[in-house]
């Protein structure tokens, strides 16, 4: 059985936050520089056991350092995948995926602001949180849902620090609920879309990391965990 600790909860929060931010914001030069270096590659290696993930990440750093991948490429890929409804756009909203249909080989995305959007918003409201609309226009944006999980993890880390078992269990249950009812309902499909349509290795790596991380989450959170 998994043993809980505040370190672990904080670590989960960091990963959720990291991935959530990468899927929400176009990164500055400084941020890209912070990520695309050898030191980060070693963090990724320790974090993700799958060798393909860290191999691709290392190749990413190599391409970037040698100028085969530029900041502009990454920026344009972000815009095309996650912001501007063009041929590569992958509609980063839960309601788009849950309502998605294939009609005569064409993907018809579900409507925005559907029932799942409002359900997600209620989760946020119950935790006294809301989305910064300048960053995520709808509450069920992938980045918002990932960041929300980060918030819940930090809250449970705080509760663990104060030995409040009841709160911890409540928060863990909220995390389970949110993952099961929302994030896990569509994140696999989202990752696959991101991987297949990304023009740059940067976003393919993010897709892989997202996929791997959420698999870990399924294993750890959805089994019972005891508080250490």
């Amino acid at each position, binding site marked *: 059985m998994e043993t809980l600790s505040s370190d672990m909860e904080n670590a989960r929060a960091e990963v959720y936050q990291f991935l959530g931010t990468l899927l929400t914001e176009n990164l500055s030069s400084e*941020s890209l520089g912070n990520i695309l270096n050898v030191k980060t590659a070693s963090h990724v290696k320790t974090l993700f056991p799958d060798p393909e993930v860290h191999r691709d990440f290392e190749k990413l750093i190599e391409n970037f350092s040698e100028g085969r991948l530029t900041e502009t490429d990454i920026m344009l890929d972000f815009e095309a995948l996650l912001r501007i409804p063009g041929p590569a756009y992958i509609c980063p909203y839960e309601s788009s995926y849950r309502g998605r249909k294939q009609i005569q080989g064409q993907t018809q995305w579900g409507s925005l602001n559907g029932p799942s959007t409002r359900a997600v918003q209620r989760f946020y409201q119950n935790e006294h949180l809301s989305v910064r609309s300048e960053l995520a226009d709808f509450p069920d944006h992938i980045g918002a849902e990932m960041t929300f999980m980060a918030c819940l993890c930090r809250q449970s880390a705080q509760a663990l620090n104060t030995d409040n078992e009841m709160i911890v269990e409540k928060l863990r249950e909220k995390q389970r609920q949110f993952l099961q009812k929302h994030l896990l309902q569509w994140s696999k499909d989202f990752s696959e879309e991101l991987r297949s349509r990304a023009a740059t290795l940067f976003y393919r790596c993010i897709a892989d990391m997202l996929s791997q991380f959420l698999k870990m989450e399924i294993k750890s959170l959805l089994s019972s965990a005891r508080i250490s």
Partner: protein
Amino acid sequence: MESTTRRNFIKGALGLGGLLATGGCMKATEKPSEWISGAPDVDPVDGKNVKVVRTVCLGCHSACGLQCKTVDGVLAKVSGNPYHPNTAEPHIPYTTDSKEAEKLEGTACAKAGATIQTLYNPNRVMHPLKRVGPRGSGKWKTVTWEQAYDEIIKGGDLFGEGQVEGLSSCRDLTTPADPAAPELGPKANQVVFMPGRIEHGKKEFTDRWFKNAYGTVNNRLDHTSICETSHHVGLDLCFDGSNHIKPDIMNAKYIIFFGTSPYEANFPMQALARKLNFFRERKGKLVIVDPRFSNSAAKADHWIPILPGTDAAFALGMMRWMIENDRVDKRYLSFPSQKAAGVDGHLTWCDASYLVRQDNRKYLRPADAGIKGEEKEYIVVTNGNPAGSESVASADLEFAGEIKGIPVKTVYTMLKERIFEKSLKDYADICELDPEIIERTADDFTSYGRRATVDFYRGPVQHTNGTYTARALAILNFLIGNVSWKGGCEAHGGSHWHEMGGKPGNPFNLGKELHPGKVKAQGVTIDRKKAKYEDSTEFKKNGYPAKRQWFPFAYNNVYQEVFPSIGAQYPYPIKILFTYWNNTVYSSPAGIHQINGIRDPKVLPLHIAIDYVMGETSSWADYILPTLHFLEDWGTPHVAPTILTTTSGVRQPVIERAAKDAKSTEEIFIDLALKMGLPGYGKEGFGPGDPLLAPEDWYKKLVANIAYGDKEGDSVPGDSEAQKVQYVLDRGGRFQDYSKSHKGDHTAHPYKNICIIYNEKLATTRDSMTGEYYDGLPIYEPLKDAMGKIVDVQRDKYPFRVNTYHPVFHAQARTAVSSWLMDFTPEECVEMNAADAKKHGIKHGDMLRVFSSSNPEGVKGKAFVTEAMRPGVISIPHSLGHWQYGSKSFDLDGKPTSARQFVGRGCSANPVMMLDPYLKDVCLQDPIGGSSSFYDSYVAVEKV
């Protein structure tokens, strides 16, 4: 996870932390409100500068309660007042704390939401205007209120066209307007007040001014006859003290609506639609009779596409089937009195068993029959023997014979003879329907006991046969004995507390007292309403026909007669016309011809319009006095009997007026009264030490009457009058609890009186033009002109019947100024059946000219081709096709004003409606109720 992996996870994850200099996309927020009413989101309109005011809407005439939020004095949000029964089912308890109630919302329709735009309409008239060119030329200048008042009161050579009398010199309460016909009243009657839409609170105020201070009988000639007056008059002739019916929808099992679309219109639309949803959820059967497949028809079990104007024939056909198949509640009909009917739990009884003299058309009375009884008692027959109606438990329904040598028949016998004049197939042929439809409808209607109702509104009654049709439809309810029963026909409704006072609990009796120096107006109104031609000098001289129709039963004014009568100077000339929120020219059938009555200053010397825009009618005035939007104004509007609990909404200003120089009608008339020294205004307007100087002085008393209630001890909480008044204002009115709608098997505020099949007064009154008696029984009549002749509609040249209606997001003239509402109004507005369109080579979107014998030029609009229309009918929604109202610029102070073209989009059906072929200057109209005919006109259509 394995422990080593866990360690690595933590190490790797924490290593990623801090790489991105960003706070993420979540932020802390305040705790949201509790989940309520399905709207859990925090209201974005919240904060320190937000004020909530509860008032009553006038987007249409439903008078729904509104809860308005202003931010820094600007109206920001309109929703429903949760205290008001129109907006919620059930509405919240009246004792709910008024601040707590701000977290709740009732419903408000699109028209209510759009009142933000009608309020802040950029084309509002901002200052008093005076014409500077010929009347109707569109040239105006701004004047001050003082100048306007001075000229209106004193008169003079105001326009360079000769002397014009002002209010002061016209106020002669003794000299007859026509010395040869003194019964017409004094010269003061030559001043007319003609409001379009005026509601309670305000109408009593202007009555006080015009009738009891100024002294004219033309104190209020309002719009009702272009709305539905024959519905009210027809019902008034079926009941004693009621003129409006509605089904008890929440308990009914079957409802058939003739000529109304409760999901789009009628009163109150929101409540009707909501209650019908519950009704349908319970598998209640809904039938809609309408030439147009409306929203309501789409939700109904049956849609009956009747030929307009034939609803009475349909009703008589139903009656025939009901009698032939023994589906009439003969037991109820046999009860001749309240006492007798009470044995079965009825609160009403019927005149079906009463004897009618066949010689003079009157009821047989005790004196006629040689029987002891009250003078007004009726005579019935029991087992063949005559008796007083109060003295027997039941009476024979069928009898024809003689009593004391007087030939008599029972009302039921006469009704049956009338019904059997035609076969069911004859009735069906008149309606151009299959007889099976009438049979099935009658069968269904009589299969639910008393939990079935026939209801109707303006569709069947805005015809020349409107009053007769209203009676025929209402009487169907009597035949199943459903009046005042739970689930049946409601003929009273919850009504309202009496804001004008006069009840034991009310502190202020404004109706009868509190008017020192009050004068009495007398004479005949310009539209000859409630006046008998036979009492006139003209009749004594000339006999029949009158020069124009007289309307002894039309107590609700004959609006469309006013301008033509002014033009004809009949029965006397008019010197000053005040119009208020009046758009006769736009809103009346054949309204463009109405202009002729008021065009000439030699015929009508002075026309003052109190309006908030340059409308189609106010553009023909001499002065326009800018008035308030209803969200800036006061009022105490009532609701329809759809609402079974007592309801008194209070309209109060939501914001400081947006047009700063505009005045309310009350302010205008207080100012005029003070300048003229009229009785009942000023520091002692109500009496010693009791001023009437501002609208608030009036409305405080009205609201106090509501607050104290009609009965002693029926007051709202509060230690003082001021506190009680504030209690009511905080809630936007006073509203009885939802649970009080019924008492046992009846509605809680029921009609408890006679149901009248044969109307003696109608049967013994003659038509002023033909000299013929009206018919006291239900009857189907075809389209007739003022002289009672069947109109030749020239169907070969004008093959389409024109219909009009208002869609759910429009009402009357005023909604077209809202770009929100116009954005989802289709440009294609001439709705016609697809087969008709194909036959005429018309496609959807084609520009068409719709024209008639009365308007060869016609109107233009784009075709809306649809299956949802009876063939042979064209339907054009009302509220479109403005040619003023801000759609067109006018000249103000030498410069053109701005205009918004979208306000004039589409076309209106009114300009092409037919004129009466005899009178030639007014539309066809119902000679009894006074309703204008909206649905009898025939038109032609061609592509342009």
